[in-house]
């Protein structure tokens, strides 16, 4: 009894100096070397924040200068005449084109990417899946301008047959009617973007599917489920949020893609009812192709449209991160 009370009494005084010392050590302020090093590393962290703030600040500043001179409504006007006096420009066409091309890309890329990820994790022979995954990793690094060159010189000529076909059988919908122009249209852009974001979505989805709990899959197989039933009941529910966030990352890339769109699309500043007829434009493409002959107001107007693109991609990426963060909690609880 005596000993135990002594033991419980003894510790309390000891931790206090210890804790203070630890605090000081954690602050790293004990030695000049530590102070310098901490200052450097914290400084570069702060520098990153400053850069982000500067991006938002500078873009907003130039954009506000442009919008204050804009005689048309910046969000709804269907024209881009920055050299007029007074200038008139609006982003409606660009917003529409950006959304349409990205939606087409997502509709094509997500199912195919999920299928390839399942192929690599659950269908392909072991010996094949390793090298294929490696090659897909490498393809994610191919520069977008190369995709653009390929799209303009190889994909576009190969689209005429498909376009004729779509026009013949689905032309009555209006979306797929085709007047026979060069197939440098939103659909071609969407297909090219799909090809570009495929490797990214596949890579992330593959990682998620690979982490699916093996025990549940084996249990389902042991109960006589077919492979498809295992995937539908054990793999896809587990990977759903991962696939969603992977798709959002791909969407972020498709929204901001510049060169591939600029090389493939033949832009006009209006909205085409048909996806097959050339025309339309996206934020990034419009900046790249209008930039070189833009006046000062023209540049500010392009910066304003860039600010809108910036905000949109921030929202999309933020949503993707939020989903990933939620999934972390979920899988942590189940670990």
């Amino acid at each position, binding site marked *: 009894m005596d000993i135990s009370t002594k033991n419980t009494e003894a510790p309390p005084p000891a931790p206090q100096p210890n804790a203070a010392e630890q605090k000081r050590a954690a602050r790293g302020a004990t030695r000049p070397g530590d102070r310098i090093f901490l200052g450097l*590393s914290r400084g*570069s962290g702060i520098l*990153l*924040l400053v850069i982000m703030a500067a991006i938002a600040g*500078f873009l907003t500043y130039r954009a506000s200068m442009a919008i204050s001179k804009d005689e048309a409504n910046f969000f709804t006007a269907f024209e881009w005449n920055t050299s007029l006096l007074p200038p008139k420009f609006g982003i409606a066409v660009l917003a529409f084109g950006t959304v349409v091309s990205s939606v087409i890309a997502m509709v094509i890329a997500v199912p195919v990417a999920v299928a390839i990820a399942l192929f690599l994790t659950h269908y392909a022979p072991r010996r094949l899946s390793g090298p294929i995954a490696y090659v897909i990793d490498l393809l994610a*690094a191919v520069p977008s301008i190369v995709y653009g060159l390929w799209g303009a010189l190889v994909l576009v000529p*190969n689209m005429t*047959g498909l376009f004729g076909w779509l026009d013949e059988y689905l032309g009555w919908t209006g979306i797929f009617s085709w007047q026979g122009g060069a197939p440098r249209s939103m659909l071609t852009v969407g297909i090219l973007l799909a090809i570009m974001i495929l490797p990214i979505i596949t890579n992330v989805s593959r990682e998620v599917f690979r982490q699916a709990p093996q025990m549940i899959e084996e249990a389902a197989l042991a109960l006589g489920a077919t492979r498809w039933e295992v995937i539908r009941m054990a793999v896809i529910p587990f990977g759903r949020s991962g696939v969603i966030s992977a798709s959002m990352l791909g969407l972020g890339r498709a929204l901001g893609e510049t060169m591939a769109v*600029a090389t493939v699309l033949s832009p006009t500043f209006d909205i085409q009812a048909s996806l097959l007829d050339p025309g339309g434009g996206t934020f990034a493409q419009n900046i790249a192709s209008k930039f070189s002959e833009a006046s000062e107001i023209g540049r500010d107007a392009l910066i304003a449209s860039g600010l809108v693109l*910036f905000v949109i991609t921030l929202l999309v990426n933020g949503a993707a991160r939020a989903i990933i963060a939620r999934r972390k909690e979920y899988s942590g609880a189940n670990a």
Partner: protein
Amino acid sequence: MSHAVADKHPSTLQGARLPRWAPYAIAAGSAVVAVGIGLAAGLDSKVQQGLIAAIIFLIGVFGSAARVEGRRQAKDRLATSLVWVAFLLAVVPLVSLVWTTVSRGLKVLDVYFLTHSMGLIADTDPGGGIYHAIVGSLEQVGLATLIAAPIGVLTAIYLVEYGRGNLARSVTFFVDVMTGIPSIVAGLFILSIMLMFDLQPFGFAGSLALAILMMPVVVRSTEEMLKLVPNELREASLALGVPKWRTILKVVLPTSIGGITTGIMLAVARIAGETAPVLLLVWGNSLINTNPFEGAQQSLPLYIYQQYANSAGSGAAYDRAWAAALTLIAFVMILNLVARGIARWKAPKTGR
């Protein structure tokens, strides 16, 4: 149906199955039929024939499996075929991309091409080369790396070794946000600064935009690598009385240097292919300009774009564009392969 099957094979517990070769036979058959339809209907495009073949294959597999094996097995086979078809569909464009770039790029890619500029050659004429673009690219990417790599690594050290509280949390969040910035927006940011000081385009402006794109990538990968360093190493060093900064420099960084190098090289490979900010900030130049701090420069991705866009369909310009694309891809791929090699070779040894 299952009764009849059980009677036919009384000694097995399995239902009737399609023979092993059935999917292959259906695939071959549907390919033949698709080509036949294509020839009969006068469809010259391989895209259509491929799509028809894929649809016939899927219907064939589902139909035959449903007849012989039952609904559940048929669904399973349909899913398997769908996955294979999706894989093949995706492989076609990616293989075509690599194949076209290599086969068309090799046409004009030689030592002359790598060592000459476009100084005296109009964009529509044959001849000329990419020397000026290579010089510009190396300088811009090199300067960007010099800026972004130290800042990125130091930020990662801060986040992993020191970071607690609100500042660390907001840095983490904004690094995530920064990863998603479209390259053209980074270009516009530097452009708005240049407009303010009335600056003409020059190479270093491009480097700054590229550095902004590179930083978050370096932070992310370095962070992952630093987290892999076992805590026992840090504790052992601190227990010997080594100051924290020397622990980081002499123990933590050397342990993870392989992974950090890999991350930086992958980030370099990523920014080396960026065109949009270079287009806005560096403009392009057909002459050799070795000074990144004054005057317009050229860069490889921008060269590709300009050869494509300014040449009015000239075959010579397209050939040069493909050759430059091949050079760029080769550069990026070599960086990737070497980086992955280093990662494997220098991987921190955990356990024994």
